[in-house]
């Protein structure tokens, strides 16, 4: 009986995930503007004051929004149909590696945050943000 329940559960899980994919239920999360990114950060932290010099990804899949006080960079990055938010301060960043295609691989000192590949569309912009983010290494 126990064996049947376990095998049945695995089959049911597989079927449900396949159905989820087949039905096309999720849409990738996208930000429409930097203002939307700032508003989300503000609602999340209750009082995040966005400063100048933020950046919205060309495809709307992430945004980097420095705080007014210059101490923190608000990061929103899409994971599937949702955004994950982090407030990056000193010690938050493990590494930020820009590449020649305008991408950046961001790793945080955060057990619950898988490395994120951010596409800036320009190698110079990616390198410039990599430098800013690497300044936040612990």
């Amino acid at each position, binding site marked *: *009986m*126990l064996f049947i*329940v*376990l095998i*049945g*559960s*695995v089959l*049911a*899980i597989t*079927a*449900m*995930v396949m*159905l*989820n*994919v087949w*039905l*096309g*239920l*999720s849409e990738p999360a996208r930000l429409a503007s930097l203002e939307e990114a700032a508003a989300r950060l503000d*609602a999340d932290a*209750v*009082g995040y004051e966005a400063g100048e010099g933020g950046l919205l990804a060309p495809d709307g899949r992430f945004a980097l929004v420095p705080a007014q006080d210059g101490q923190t960079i608000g990061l929103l*990055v899409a*994971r*599937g*149909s*949702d955004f*994950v*938010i*982090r407030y990056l301060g000193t010690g938050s960043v493990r590494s930020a590696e820009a590449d020649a295609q305008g991408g950046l691989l961001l790793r945080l000192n*955060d*057990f*619950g*945050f*898988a490395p*994120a590949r951010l596409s800036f569309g320009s190698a110079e912009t990616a390198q410039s943000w990599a430098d800013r983010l690497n300044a936040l290494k612990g």
Partner: protein
Amino acid sequence: MDVPAFVETFDPVYAGVILFTVLVVSEMVYARMTGGARFEAADSAASLAMGFGNLVSKLLFSGFLAVWFVFVYEHRFFDIGFAWWAWILAFVLDDFVYYWSHRFAHTVRWFWADHVVHHSSQHYNLTTALRQPWLNPLTLKFLWLGSALILLGFHPAMIAFVGSLNLIYQFWIHTEAIKKCPAWFEAVMNTPSHHRVHHATNPVYLDRNYAGVFIVWDKMFGTFQPELENEKCRYGIVKNLGTYNPLKISLHEWWGIIDDMRHARSLRDAALYLLAPPGWSPDGSRATSKQLLAKWQARQTSQAGQPPAEAAE
């Protein structure tokens, strides 16, 4: 004392597996047809993997827990037996104990490390109901809250049975597909609307509606918050996970506690990292639910020049 045969041969959760699958599939089809529910394949896969792991975990720990509960039952205060009224009483009292256990799970970080798994999806659908922890015995709550009714005199099999019924009840309330139930039902029972509030991270909704089956416990103990029309639920946890890895979902808060305690500057700080509410820190650099609510209320008041949206005390 003879245990009724159906208690020994029938586990409602096993039967529930079939019911759960049918309802999840129905909700997915409903989402496709109406857009009235949200799904993400990776999120669903993670939730279902957590549910499967929870099942395996229960099987692995069940022998040890059974020995403990039999030991407690041998030292019971009363012989309550299996009369019909005992079943009803056990169901209600089990839900009462569930309320307090659940409340502690949100207000003591040690217990939150286990329960956070269930809240770690940004989606609110029937797969979220199955996103359950793998390491529940590490909270040691089975030693006291889990044993209270057995020590009183309820048979362990009866408590296990009504506990399963309680969990099955809670499955269907994890949905956005049902907006409101009839008023009398909303007044007494836990419903999708009440439980959406519980899963939301909007400051006004944090740490509210701990009920399992009967919402009256929240009304009695001051933790009830109705769903507000002008405050759409944002689901998940205050610091949402950026991963679908089941191992990380399972361990992230435990890891956070160990890391914080390792770097604590005093024994007191180390103890509070374990026992204080989630979000506590010695320097105030993080925020607890109460602190987030206070900030939100202050801002509502200053922005509108009016009292904040109605929030429960």
